[in-house]
């Protein structure tokens, strides 16, 4: 050990003492805060920090209760009991606002009660609209237990044993930055800058934490792994992009009140959007009929007026059946199709491409008896994502004549040649003919009469709203249901209308990521990153093709539990990497496999951040609530330290302190006018709604950011995949394919209400509610295997195996099992983990649109008693 390290160690010992002292201080405050009767004499020996009854009372409480304590201690049993209930609130120095945003999508405002630099309790903070005041068991446990967890990464830790062995040396930040600099520079010299790579996920909705990979990879001209695909959220987006021109959008949740029927495909909001579910209840109480399509009786399905169980991965087939009924019974909105979609555009029946005359599309004008051109909308007339604003008048040449046909079959002459054409909508009509309710039923296992009834409700009990979400997303064919739902909403004229629409994700979260000023997220002028698909990162690194990648730096990502196919990752990918860095708060599965682990601040320690939400349009601003624990830093601060080490800080946007950076790039220089709120107001109030209409209803402008400017229900760029219109095909590991003979069970891994992915599951209060992982298996499947609730079972396929306790339940469709996700390898017997069973196979159509989505539910397994 060098002398400098020894000195560092001594310093570390002192810090450790400081930390211990703070932790002890926290205990004393908890005692002080306890609002129950004083009983110091009886309870002074207690050591449990959370024990109410250990409460040596606060000085205030003690004072107030001094007489009663005396009376009680000398009282006869028969004396009247004395109830000292303590003060309404604990003694505190300040209430500070924070934002809890662990990717549960809600981004709750939190009032933290702080005493001597320690959080002693939290309550929901006020929003301008009090419907958004909220908190939950995860946010509470995070503030009181994760922030103060013994499992926090406290200091930069350098691996000294084998990877995964758990042997670490504490090093200083200076040593850590030197080491990173040395490793990065070596790669730059030997392989080129793209050998250094960054992988950011969404564990904290802080803007700079989410932009970290972009900021770092661009600064050092490295590789940025895209994250939308491997996070498993991209399937629905891949239904949106070709049709709507953007990845996602939703009406404000309050728009549900007023809907007559709300149909949910793959939405389990009661667990996954638990802060939004109250809007669903509001809607039901106002008379909406709630219908939930799901293979499980999810908690949301349990609240529905009608639950429709379905075979997993076949929602698109159900919707094709609904569209058969809708078209057969003429429930379409012909005017809407003609005016707002490209349904009237003529399609060459031979090539299936849209017939065009120069840049113009063609439609068949029945009055004129000939094809007439329709011009594509100029880009400046369309909304410019992430903004939704539109300006200028749409010229008449972009309008489809009222007399244009949407069905039929015609001959037109294009470039001197006569071709057979049909309006695009005719292709949809033709495509659903075979999907009779009976045929659809055979595929999706929903009775034909139920398909008809669902379609009838959608058309007659209006306004009818469609919600679609992650349950459909997480199959290899996961873009198909969204594509079908958009087509169904479009042909019935339900897009851009109050209490209707097709709704997926939305809010400000994605929009601000795309609208942050490039000078901020690419901080080094003239330096850009190379983006590679995160869904292919394992193959790229394993093969070192198309170029060598030797260093990966993860942040905001519980990659040790949330990333698929760990067997392949450990055997083929990690050995190719010379250096793995994980920036983390907790010593979790990903940190365990790293070479260097860096301590990251909790929400309550960050000096300043801007946060948005997937579920609303509020901008929130964090200010520091408590002094950073241990030696933790923000991702941004680490970026600044590294820029300084490389000697480039002053030439880059890393030179700005975080408040300046956010003001300049996130707010005042934001590309979307909607986010350019008054910085001082945001800084002062810590919550301001971005300037979107309230309530926000997407697509009211009737203009889309597609090539034509219309809602494109026909996409000729997908002809080669047979996906120019909505269709259905089986999931990759469908339970009707041959593989099901060997592995008959569809392996879902749904979220619970008790944790946001891997973030809360290790916390003591959460574990009191859910002590250990479990897998749900139907009574039918369990009986066949002799499995009872509480039995340890072995779950396996060709990719891997793990062990877990079974819960035998009627909740789930026979043929499916559901491992509740988020648990860490350390929580399962022998460090086994379900991620080992999950594939990361590419879907060619999704890749052609943008990128494949990770499909965690589309995996077949077998189960037996362990």
């Amino acid at each position, binding site marked *: 050990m060098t002398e400098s390290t020894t000195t560092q160690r001594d310093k570390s010992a002192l810090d450790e003492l400081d930390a211990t002292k703070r932790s002890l201080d926290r205990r004393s405050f908890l005692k002080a805060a306890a609002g*129950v009767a004083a009983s110091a004499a009886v309870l002074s020996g207690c050591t449990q920090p959370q024990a109410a009854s250990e409460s040596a009372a606060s000085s205030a409480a003690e004072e107030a209760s001094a007489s009663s304590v005396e009376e009680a201690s000398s009282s006869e049993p028969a004396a009247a009991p004395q109830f000292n209930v303590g003060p309404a609130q604990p003694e505190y120095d300040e209430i500070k606002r924070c934002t809890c945003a662990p990717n549960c999508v809600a981004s709750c405002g939190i009032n933290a009660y702080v005493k001597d630099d320690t959080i002693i*309790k939290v309550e929901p903070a006020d929003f301008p609209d009090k419907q958004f005041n909220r908190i939950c068991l995860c946010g*509470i446990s995070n503030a009181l237990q994760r922030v103060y967890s013994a499992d926090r990464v406290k200091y930069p830790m350098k691996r000294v044993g084998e990877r995964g062995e758990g042997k670490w040396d504490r090093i200083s930040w200076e040593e850590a930055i030197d080491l990173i600099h040395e490793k990065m520079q070596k790669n730059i010299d030997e392989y080129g800058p793209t050998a250094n790579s960054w992988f950011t996920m969404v564990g904290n909705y802080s803007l700079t934490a989410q932009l970290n990979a972009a900021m770092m990879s661009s600064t050092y001209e490295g590789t940025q792994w895209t994250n939308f695909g491997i996070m498993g959220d991209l399937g629905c987006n891949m239904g949106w992009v070709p049709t709507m021109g953007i990845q996602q959008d939703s009406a404000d949740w309050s728009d549900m009140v007023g809907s007559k029927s709300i149909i949910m495909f793959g939405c389990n909001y009661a667990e996954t959007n638990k802060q939004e579910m109250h809007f669903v209840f509001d809607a039901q109480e106002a008379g909406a009929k709630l219908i939930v399509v799901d293979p499980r009786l999810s*908690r949301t399905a349990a609240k529905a007026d009608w639950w429709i169980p379905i075979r997993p991965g076949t929602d698109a087939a159900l919707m094709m059946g609904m569209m058969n009924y809708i078209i057969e019974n003429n429930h379409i909105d012909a005017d809407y199709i003609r005016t707002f979609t490209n349904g009237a555009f003529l399609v060459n029946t031979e090539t299936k491409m849209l017939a065009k005359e120069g840049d113009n599309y063609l439609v068949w004008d029945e009055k004129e008896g000939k094809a007439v051109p329709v011009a594509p909308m100029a880009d400046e007339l369309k909304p410019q994502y992430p903004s939704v604003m539109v300006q200028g008048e749409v010229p008449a040449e972009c309008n489809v004549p009222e007399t244009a046909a949407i069905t039929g079959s015609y001959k037109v002459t294009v470039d001197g040649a006569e071709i057979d054409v049909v309006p695009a909508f005719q292709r949809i009509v033709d495509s659903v003919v075979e999907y009779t309710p009976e045929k659809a039923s055979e595929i999706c296992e929903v009775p034909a009469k139920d398909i008809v009834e669902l379609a009838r409700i959608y058309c007659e009990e209006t306004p009818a709203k469609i919600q679609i979400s992650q349950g459909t997303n997480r199959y290899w064919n996961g873009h198909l249901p969204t594509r079908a739902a958009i087509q169904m909403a479009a042909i019935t004229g339900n897009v851009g209308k109050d209490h209707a629409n097709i709704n997926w994700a939305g809010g400000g979260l994605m929009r601000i990521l795309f609208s942050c000023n490039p000078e901020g997220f690419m901080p080094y002028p003239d330096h850009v990153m190379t983006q590679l698909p995160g869904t292919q990162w394992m193959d790229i690194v394993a093969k070192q093709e198309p170029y060598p990648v030797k260093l990966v730096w993860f942040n905001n990502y519980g990659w040790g539990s949330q990333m698929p196919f760990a067997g392949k990752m450990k055997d083929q990918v990690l050995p190719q990497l010379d250096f793995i860095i994980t920036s983390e708060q907790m010593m979790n599965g990903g940190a365990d496999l790293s070479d260097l682990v860096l301590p990251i601040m909790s929400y309550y320690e960050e000096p300043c951040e801007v946060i948005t939400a997937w579920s609303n349009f509020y901008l929130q601003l964090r200010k520091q609530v408590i002094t950073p624990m241990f030696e933790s830093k923000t991702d941004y601060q680490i970026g600044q330290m590294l820029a300084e080490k490389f000697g480039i800080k002053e030439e880059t946007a890393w030179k700005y302190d975080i408040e300046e950076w956010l003001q300049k790039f996130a707010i005042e220089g934001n590309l979307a006018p909607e986010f350019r709120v008054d910085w001082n107001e945001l800084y002062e109030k810590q919550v301001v709604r971005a300037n979107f209409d309230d309530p926000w209803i997407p697509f009211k402008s009737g203009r889309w950011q597609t090539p034509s400017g219309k809602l494109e229900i026909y996409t000729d760029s997908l002809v080669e995949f047979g996906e120019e219109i909505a269709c259905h095909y089986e999931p990759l590991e469908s339970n009707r394919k041959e593989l099901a003979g060997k592995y008959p069970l569809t392996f879902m891994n749904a979220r619970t209400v008790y944790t946001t992915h891997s973030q809360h599951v290790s916390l003591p209060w959460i574990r009191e509610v859910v002590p250990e992982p479990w897998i749900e298996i139907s009574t039918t499947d369990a009986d066949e295997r002799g499995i009872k609730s509480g039995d340890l079972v072995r779950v396996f396929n060709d990719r891997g195996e793990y062990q877990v306790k079974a819960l035998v339940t009627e909740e789930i469709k026979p043929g499916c099992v559901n491992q509740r996700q988020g648990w860490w390898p350390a929580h399962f017997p022998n460090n086994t983990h379900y991620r080992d069973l999950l594939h990361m196979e590419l879907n060619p159509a999704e890749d052609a649109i943008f990128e494949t989505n990770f499909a965690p539910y589309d995996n077949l397994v077998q189960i037996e008693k362990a």
Partner: protein
Amino acid sequence: MSKFGMAINLHRCVGCRTCTVSCKMENHVAEGIARVHVLNPDGTALGSEDKPTGTYPDLKMEWRPVPCQHCDNPPCVEVCPAGATAKREDGLVLVDLEACIGCALCVEACPYGARVMDEETKKVDKCTGCAHRLDGGLDTTMCQLCCPNRAIVAGDLDDASSEVAKIVAEQETEQYLADKGTGPNVYYWYSVKK
């Protein structure tokens, strides 16, 4: 006069246990015990054990948060040999921890499981109706304030204008284990009937 009561809307309860955990934070409830249990359909309380009743696909799943019912005839008060527990004038059933001798007779007497022993202190622990908050002028219990789905309302049953009194007056409500003769003051109801 005032009379403490609660109305819990079971349609809005999704069994998330935020009531349990927010109460633990607010009242510094000891590790391993809870003052508000959330019961699964089969009466178990762990979040990892909930399952519906019925046979697939004819199923029903709901949860029941069970705080102290602050009964009119609290069996726990009757059995306490130390005179440590009583019903306050406003209806809250409270414990004088100084006087509690930890005999656990009240734990056995309560049909709701609302009382638990804190093994560390050897005293009984129970829901106070957040008396400290209400006495101090706040208008919500912590479970009410934190419930994500706004399922819980607490207040004065004797005040006809209070939300809780209105629910009891206007809605079809039920009292849990009413046949035990305890006169519970927590009213369960459904805002949406299916």
